[in-house]
């Protein structure tokens, strides 16, 4: 069993009530299938409104799909009840785009990272604090900042906190929903490196959701392109970028601003 996550024919339909009470159906996801191998990264790319975030919510068991299955670690999780979900949810954690909004600004770094452990009733106070300190070290937050409040950290450090918090329950899958998009280029590089290090040392599996095809290309083993609720193309990152088979993929590639590598010019003195 080398695939950690398998998504099979997933569909999500929302019902919208029009002005006159007429029901209208919106297909947010349609017949979505893919899988992610253990300790690998799948990047999910596509334009705004293509269904990327809905898919993330369905996988994280925060939305129930209308039909289809999600198999996580060999077990179907789409049909579980709330009590059973409590066992599964810790293993699938999310990191969101804007840590300024997703973290409580009045919580200290230690509190933020140990809160999920309290919710899950794991460890005693002392052990929780040790675990939290260990996680902060892993994500590169200096020990002396452990009791600082979330809003006293910079954007990049806050995203490190969000990652530490997501890791506190020792998940197998991290869903990174535009987790780098709000950061500056130099900070993006730091966090991208952190994600790669953590993946190598902890064997984490990532679902990297982004509209930045450039960063997706750097971090992912495989790329899935979404358009209007469907996965229109899926393949190894290299192949998909070199020989895109679908119009949506070509359009994304064409729209991605490119710099090329900065050349190392002999210094002008």
């Amino acid at each position: 069993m080398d695939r950690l996550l398998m998504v099979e024919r997933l569909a999500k339909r929302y019902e919208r009530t029009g002005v006159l009470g007429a029901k209208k159906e919106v297909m947010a996801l349609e017949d979505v299938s893919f899988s992610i191998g253990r300790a690998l990264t799948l990047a999910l790319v596509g334009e705004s409104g293509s269904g990327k975030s809905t898919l993330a919510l369905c996988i994280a068991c925060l939305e129930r799909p209308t039909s289809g299955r999600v198999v996580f670690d060999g077990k179907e999780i789409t049909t579980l009840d709330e009590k059973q979900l409590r066992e599964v949810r810790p293993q699938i954690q999310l990191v969101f785009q804007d840590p300024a909004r997703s973290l409580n600004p009045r919580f200290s770094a230690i509190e933020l990272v140990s809160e999920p452990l309290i919710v899950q009733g794991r460890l005693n106070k002392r052990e929780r604090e040790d675990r939290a300190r260990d996680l902060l070290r892993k994500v590169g937050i200096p020990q002396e900042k452990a009791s600082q409040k979330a809003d006293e950290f910079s954007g990049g450090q806050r995203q490190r906190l969000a990652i530490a918090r997501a890791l506190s329950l020792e998940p197998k899958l991290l869903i990174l929903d535009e987790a780098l998009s709000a950061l500056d280029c130099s900070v993006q590089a730091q966090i991208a490196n952190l994600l790669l290090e953590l993946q190598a040392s902890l064997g984490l599996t990532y679902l990297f959701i982004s509209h930045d095809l450039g960063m997706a290309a750097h971090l992912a083993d495989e790329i899935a392109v979404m358009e209007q609720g469907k996965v229109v193309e899926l393949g190894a990152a290299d192949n998909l970028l070199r020989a895109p088979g679908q119009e949506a993929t070509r359009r994304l590639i064409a729209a991605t601003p490119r710099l090329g590598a900065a050349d190392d010019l002999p210094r002008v003195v």
Partner: protein
Amino acid sequence: MAPLLQVQDLHVAYISRAGKESPALEGVSFEVRTGETLGVLGESGCGKTTLAVALLRLLPGNAEIQKGVVRFEGQDLLQAKPRALERIRGARLALIFQEPSLALHPAIRIGEQVSDVLAAHERNGRGELRRKTLQVLREVFPADAARIAESYPHQLSGGQQQRVLIAMAIACGPSLIVADEPTASLDPTTQKDILEIFRTLREKFNLSVILITHNPALLAGLADRVLVLYAGKVAEIGPTEQVLKFPQHPYTRALMQSVPAGIDESTKGRKSRLPVIPGEAPNLAAQESGCRFESRCPDRMDQCRQREPAAVAVNETHAVSCFKFGG
């Protein structure tokens, strides 16, 4: 011919209630020529937005322009009387903000919001105003200007809202537009469309544009020159190709290397460690003497701690503030 905009030695600081000064821009100088697009590249907190609003003297109450000259079309805007300034703002020099959904009034139709800009600067009859409004909207919505004019902001997508802001900016035929992260909240396809509009308008109206962004890749192929702002100072300024491809300042160099080649990356490069700039951008209030980038710089020397480097020309068009080049 004198440049369209000439900024000399601009100093802006934010003053806290306790009277403590936090400098945001220190000695920024540059110029923009007619028809030129200048890219301003910088990361959070380096003073990009302060620069945009300072040019039009639209800074918040706790900010103070301490020194400098902003000469635009022959007039120093920092000395201009309020009435004179009003005639320039939005008419000759227009500003486009980052978040289009916040910049538009949610309960007023688009057509009316565009004609408000025209009415503020020109005297027109009602029919003439309507004709001009549609004409301006057609520049950015060639196919359905009339429908857009009748719409409310919430009926438009983010990209369409951004187009409306561009229409409002060009309504009175300005010579310079300052756009602060105009594509930050848009997805790549829409972003490309918006940048294309800037390119078209520049050619059609010989418009000058200051395009402020944190993403160097956006400037490639669009800006004529790039100004790199670091901690409230100009680190480097020069032709886009030179600055992005052959960066000279250690900061620009490190910044460019930290961006993954992405789509063009080799198989070996994928999932590899990116070169990063160690540490974080400095807190300007705590800054003492020396170069702003010194503590993070791979090439630092003894003198970097002692005093600040001045801008040194590496050739006629390219200047760098770093002791490696003299200064």
